[in-house]
């Protein structure tokens, strides 16, 4: 084998080696960026949230009642519309949904403003209800801190810590 071919092969080998390393790193990077599915999915124009999601501790700003109109029938899912978990969707069943920081909750919030078992959302009859489970910072609906059990119509944002959740059809 000639000297030139060998040198080319030698350097080409190193290049290929680094191609492998860099493509492996590319796969790792994709993984580090985290799941992007949720963010992409959930940006449909929503009357309830069009006013921009509330930031931080501020109580839910949007006027929610009007969006209940277009959706007929029972809600089918609970959607997080503001906060770190924006876009997360949970299908509704008869068993209700527990929200809080404890790992045993259905929706686990990593949020210092939320209590470990913060609130519960559950159906009774044809209606869904939200119950504050004695949380420290409270659960808000329409800017008002709820006391005990309150009916939760679809499309109305309920603020728990930094997150706002709502029922959707």
């Amino acid at each position, binding site marked *: 084998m000639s000297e030139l071919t060998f040198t080319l092969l*030698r350097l080409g*080998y190193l290049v290929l080696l680094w191609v492998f390393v860099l493509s492996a790193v590319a*796969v790792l990077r994709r993984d580090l960026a985290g799941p992007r599915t*949720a963010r992409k*999915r959930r940006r449909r124009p929503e009357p309830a949230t069009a006013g921009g999601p509330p930031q931080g501790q501020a109580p839910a700003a949007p006027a929610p009642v009007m969006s209940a109109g277009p959706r007929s029938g029972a809600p089918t*899912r609970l959607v997080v519309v503001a906060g770190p978990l924006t876009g997360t*969707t949970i299908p509704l069943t008869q068993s209700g949904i527990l929200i809080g920081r404890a790992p045993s909750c259905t929706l686990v919030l990593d949020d210092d403003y939320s209590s470990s078992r913060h609130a519960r959302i559950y159906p009774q009859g044809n209606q869904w209800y939200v119950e504050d489970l004695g949380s420290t910072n409270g659960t808000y609906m329409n800017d008002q801190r709820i006391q005990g059990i309150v009916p939760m119509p679809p499309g109305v944002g309920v603020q728990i810590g930094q997150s706002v959740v709502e029922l959707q059809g």
Partner: protein
Amino acid sequence: MSMLSEKLPQGMQDAIQPEENAPGRAAEAVLLVVALALGFGGLAMVGYSLEDRLPDGFWTEVLVLSALSLTAHIVLRIRAPYADQVILPAVMLLNTMSLAMITRLEMAGMRGADAGRHLMWTSLSIAVACVLLLVLRDHRVLRKYTYTVMVAALVLVILPLIPKLGQEINGAKIWINVAGFSLQPAEFAKILFAVFFAGYLVANRDTLALAGKKVLGLQLPRLRDLGPILVVWAVSLMVLVGQKDLGTSLLFFGLFVGMLYLATERGGWVAIGMSMFVVGAFVAWTIFSHVQARVEIWLNPLDPELIEREFGGSYQIVQGMFGMAFGGMFGAGWGEGYSSRIPFAFSDMIYAAFGEELGLTGLLAILLVYLAIVQRGLRAAIGVRDGFGKLLAGGLAFVMALQLFVVVGGITRVIPLTGLTLPFMAQGGSSLLANWIVIALLLRISDAARRPSALPTRGQLATPPMNSGPSTDGAIEVGPGASTADRAAARQSMPSPSDEVTQMHVPIRNDGGDQA
């Protein structure tokens, strides 16, 4: 289909997201092809540069390794579809490159280099890893055997000291002779210790983390909780004294301290562990001549008297340094260096041989590939939901990183040279087999970590429990057509001996109380 899909209308099925179907593992396939091309390319270049023809057995090796890679890939697709896609190609690359290097050394007439045997062990190891992936469906099963595993590990450590069975090779008593094969039981003990520590720490970490008082900002544990760490320290000292094996003793102790830190997040343990290690190492240095010799050749390798010394001299390390220096930036090229002059270039010193033939550029690439494997292991530890899996994956990844550091550090004179082997590269059946088992375990845990789950985790969405609530009899049937969410739900409700405890320990971090 099962109840889930009947109950939920179509729109909701895709609400569950994020991944409904098992990923295709295309990235793994592509990377595997590149890895094999690099391995076989190296082999071919070795042949052409040394003898102007393909090396003997080239096509056998190509066939065997391609078939094995394909098998492993298919096994992963079927049995661990969510497992990490980088690990297998990265390991395959290291292993095939080491095959090329050992073939090269054998062709150069080096005594002890045996590519055929290395290929055989590689095949066996990959086969064992595949079988392990097929048999072990859930890593949590291992937790049942925490203490059995501990006994087995101790037995393995002691085996080389038994007179007839143990063999002394090159001054270290770390081999046993079984049916004509020399095995290093410590390599397997490493895995067993990781399993034992994971099982032990997941049950006891709260005591270890929370009891005790604070001194100078360090949370110091109570004296009576020091028992286990003292035992492990004693075992590793025994390895050091009885078997004259610096590296393995460092590895065991480092593994334990590392996992203790992972489990408790208390820097105090690391401080205690390090000081115990320093004390142990200092005492060993004052008492044992072989430790003194290691330190001496580490500090002054180029001393002519040390190079000439018959036994325990620095000839090996100096040859390795010359080799790497000759390799320079881009290396001499496959088969063009003089790596057969480095003693043990096929096992302990293979890193120096690569430095000579591939240069610094190649060495850095190799280190990055190792780094990728370790990172994937730690990533699996972060992602997996049970505490035992977290500790096991974290421990296995850490011990691989530590081993890499000890070996490469020894060859490049960062620390004294010890007799550890470079995972997947050094010739030696035990090391190869043990490390492939580690890889199988990491793949299994990473599959569990990345599988969409029915259990709620921090920052992820979760499906609410179905009407029946968590089943305790484990009689959930998962048909072949069931969606992955069903499978995940069934997996999660599978009764496992550790369930109660793992559920309690889901987040490895202690969040400092639950009240907001």
